[in-house]
């Protein structure tokens, strides 16, 4: 079996990227729907519906990209890249919702990126 880690990188990164976008879409949808409870009406759901659907579609894309990656590389190589989603979500949440990037988040992200770089060199 041949492994070409570098050919898989675009698929891995596309999978993580679309999962992050999906998360942002779902969050944005739920902001429109509001807190879900007994008083949530069909009208509330309708306000977030298009973003919910878009978010779920993006998860579909992410899954397809992930399967494409797993056809090319070992799981122990590909899986650690998923931790980049912590970093991606932090950045996306800052851009989309103005959430704070605290020092622990920044330091932790730096460690995660460093770890992923080492894994990428291990292919």
């Amino acid at each position, binding site marked *: 079996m041949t492994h070409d880690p570098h050919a898989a990188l675009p698929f891995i990164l596309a999978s993580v990227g679309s999962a992050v976008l999906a*998360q942002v879409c779902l969050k944005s949808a739920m902001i429109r729907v509001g807190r879900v409870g007994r008083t949530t009406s069909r009208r509330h759901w309708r306000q977030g519906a298009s973003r919910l659907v878009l978010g779920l579609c993006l998860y579909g894309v992410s899954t397809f990209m992930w*399967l494409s990656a797993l*056809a090319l590389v070992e799981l122990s190589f590909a*899986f650690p890249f998923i931790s980049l989603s912590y970093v991606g979500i932090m950045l996306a*949440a800052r851009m989309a*919702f103005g959430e704070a990037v605290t020092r622990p988040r920044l*330091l932790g992200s730096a*460690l995660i990126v460093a770890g992923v770089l*080492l894994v990428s060199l291990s292919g």
Partner: protein
Amino acid sequence: MTRARGGLDARTVQLVGVSVVMSVTAQLMLRRGMAQAAGSHGLALLRSAALSGWVVGGLLVFATGTAVWLLVLSRVDLAVAYPLGSLSYVLVTLLSAALLHEQVPLLRWIGTALILTGIMVVARGERGRQRPGDEAYAGSGGPAGAAGGAESAASGPQS
């Protein structure tokens, strides 16, 4: 999403265990199935994925694990959920070596250890923070997402 007050009870620990085991199992199954489709692309890849029991089964296990992870997130703070979810990184690497016979170079282990440390640092920072509307963090991306990552939780798994 209402957040319970961070504490860990026995029930939550059970749920975390189930969720992490399911998402890790799902990844192993997906790789097992896709390894047989090595080299195919696009529609051919989709076709072999859809016809593979390992892949279809893996996706079902993944979806269930993600649902359980959402239950976990509704019970504990991210400061607790993140480090627990990060267990999946160690388990995936260990079990890829043990069950899929992958050779894991030392560099990959060191990278995985750095990633774990990073997740712990992020989690420590979340402790006691009041973050209305920070639930975007709850997910970790991708089909790994759940418990990862575990993600993405509605993930993503991905996390």
